[in-house]
């Protein structure tokens, strides 16, 4: 990365109405949110850092493993890293406790969804119900006008409609707009995503140039409260802590015609489209087609049956436009790593819709989010039913 490329970030276009006032920066201790702090400070903004304490790693000690502490959620290392950045750049920084909210709004629903045979997206709940709810409120209560985060996405105001719009990040490989569709107009109007215009390489370069102590810190890829990535183990340990034994949750694996072809040890072990871990040998590769939590059954079949054209969504949130009255064409993204596919969205009720894809899509999974785009603009998002 040459210096000339970097220099342009000192003159990033910014929204005029955000120029004054204190900005709170949500700091995880990672390179992205630390770079946000450095960037805002370079722009001459008064900032205060807030690091959320979300999950006590001393809980469920059997899950701690031998991994390095820095890959654990809310590990002291991450808190110290955030503090070190604040100290290096010389701005006030506080650790704030949201463990209660995080458990009630993210962890428990996550586990409940898995146990109900769905595949949840915890990061969306965390954004909608923790980061941009109690944290944003606290930011405003301590006197900040806005909350800036290290998300790769963009916000802009549409002068014609008067609405705040959510847009994909410039760096499509890092885009996190899939996790942000739940935000309200009020939340968007108070939020800043300064990395939305940058690539990951540019952010690293910026962190290095600012001599941030976290400039070389590796990225965390896993869900923050399941640092090992082993969801099944986490769900079992967490349920056990709540006094629920999953030992008796075993059930049948059936094919499309309902013939029992094997047994499973709990629907939380499965997600739609999954091939590995079915626990038995079959002539042709079989995939999880659907999960029936009522009958405690996992239904499997061949790959071509996994492709479907229609799904229904609920909890619909229209972000960048008013709720449309007629069916609407958009590109629908049904999981984080899914290439958005053209579809027709037909509103059914207050917050539900039918999504009909032009071509069949593989593994449309209940519990995941469907996010609808026009160009870079996020029109809406919803939960797949």
């Amino acid at each position, binding site marked *: 990365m040459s210096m000339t490329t970097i220099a342009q970030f000192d003159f990033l276009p910014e929204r005029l109405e955000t120029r004054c006032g204190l900005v709170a920066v949500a700091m995880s201790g990672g390179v992205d949110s630390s770079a946000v702090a450095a960037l805002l400070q370079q722009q001459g903004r008064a900032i205060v850092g807030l690091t959320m304490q979300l999950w006590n790693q001393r809980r469920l000690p059997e899950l701690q493993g031998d991994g390095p502490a820095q890959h654990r959620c809310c590990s002291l290392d991450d808190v110290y890293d955030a503090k070190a950045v604040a100290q290096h750049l010389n701005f006030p920084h506080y650790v*704030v*406790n949201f463990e209660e909210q995080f458990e009630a709004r993210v962890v428990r629903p996550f586990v409940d969804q898995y146990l109900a045979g769905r595949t949840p997206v915890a990061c969306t709940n965390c954004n909608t119900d923790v980061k941009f709810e109690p944290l944003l409120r*606290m930011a*405003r209560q*301590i006197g900040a006008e806005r909350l800036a985060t290290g998300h790769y996405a963009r916000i802009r105001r549409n002068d014609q409609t008067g609405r705040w719009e959510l847009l994909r990040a410039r760096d499509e490989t890092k885009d996190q707009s899939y996790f942000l569709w739940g935000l309200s107009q009020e939340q968007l109007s108070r939020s800043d995503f300064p990395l939305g215009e940058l690539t990951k390489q540019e952010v690293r370069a910026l962190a290095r140039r600012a001599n941030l102590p976290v400039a070389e810190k590796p990225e965390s890829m896993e869900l923050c409260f399941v640092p090992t990535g082993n969801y099944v183990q986490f769900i079992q340990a967490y349920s056990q802590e709540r006094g629920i034994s999953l030992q008796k949750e075993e059930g049948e694996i059936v094919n499309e015609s309902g013939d029992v072809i094997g047994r499973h040890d709990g629907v939380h072990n499965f997600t739609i489209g999954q091939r590995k871990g079915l626990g038995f040998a079959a002539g042709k590769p079989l995939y999880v087609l659907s999960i029936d939590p009522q009958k405690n059954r996992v239904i499997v079949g061949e790959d071509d049956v996994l492709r479907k054209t229609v799904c229904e969504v609920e909890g619909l949130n229209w972000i960048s436009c008013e709720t449309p009255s007629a069916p609407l064409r958009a590109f629908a993204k049904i999981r984080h790593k899914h290439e958005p596919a053209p579809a027709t969205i037909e509103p059914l009720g207050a917050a539900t819709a039918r999504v009909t894809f032009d071509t069949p899509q593989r593994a449309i999974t209940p519990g995941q989010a469907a996010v609808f785009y026009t160009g870079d603009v996020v029109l809406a998002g919803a939960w797949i039913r």
Partner: protein
Amino acid sequence: MNRVYLDFNATTPVEPEVLDAMLPYFSAEFANAASIHTPGQRARAAVETAREQVAALIGARPQEIVFTSGGTESDNHAIFGIVNPLVSGPFPNLDKHDEFPPRRHVLSQHKHVITSAIEHEAVLNTCQALEKDGVAVTYLAVDRDGRVDPDVVRRAVQSGLSDPKTFSRTAPPPATSLISIMHANNELGTVQPLEEIGRIAKEADIYFHTDAVQSAGKIPIDVNVLQVDLLSLSAHKLYGPKGIGALYIRGGTRLRQLLYGGHHQRGFRPGTENVAGIVGIGKAAEISRKSLAEDAQRISALRDKLQQALLQRVPQSRVNAGGALRTPNTTNLVFPGVEGEALLIALDLKGLACSTGAACSSGAVEPSHVLTAIGLPPEEARASLRFSLGRHTTPADIDFALNVIPAAVAQLRELSPTYRKEATART
């Protein structure tokens, strides 16, 4: 930025006079107080002077004072020293030529401890560690002002004798070997009726420990009036340095060693003496003893002014433990509808330092066990803030606090969904 510090219960600055007294012992007078040579003897003399100064603050004899690394070590030493279910002996004598005969031996079957629910973690977690090893611990409840009722202490005492009715069927309950009740509470300021509890302990022939970290230098302490056998002190709460404390051990008390090493401090606390720190706690104790009455009067007047004005200017605010006898410098208020954590940060950004609850390892605030114990619902415990004044607090500091707190509370309430709901419900 103008910064006002109202968190003297967390720590205090080292008095310039204390610092001056300490400085030579880092360099010119660097010798080991255990050395035989002249420089060593000079360091020894400084240590012994400090021992006298600390003893004088609490009405003890110098040979009853052992220097430690601070309040936490003193509490651990007192509790583990009396109650250790796993190890027996050795019991070093505090003083070979002690005029007191050994008072009592603590035997391994003595396995019951009485403490309170609002102790500092240094006592609570030590007791919890004992519980894991089979010691029975009674955590006494407190009233809404944070007071321990002496009658409740009396009833909690176990003699170790079987109930005649069940004699043949059940093992006798473990006998109480230690009562540990703090002198003043760090969060509320509540002062416990130690004199009465001390009388109960003496009548029942049970060792009595008190954590006096928050009362020393704020209210008078006399170990013979309180009838305590063990008392913990910390220098940094009384304008001395951090990392040094003391444990008062009444002559004749049989206390197990916690650390093993050389013969320093007659085996009670091996390890080369922290001479500069010891000189610091000595000087700090001396200053505190002399200025205690005057400090208390001036500080309590400022505290009362702050408290009264906040009650007037912040709607619905209340004082926690306001009905109790309190240390003169502490007031704890609840501001309903406010997240204490957010208020603390908002005030800090305006230059006012105060405290809420107890900080955990990451620095995030956890709900206070003390406020929970006095019966506050969780949302009120989280809406509480502690202001603790110090020797150097000025009327201007209080004016500054009164300037920023009501405005900050109003701003927080404006953005609080719960407070708005409450307000609408009321109209």
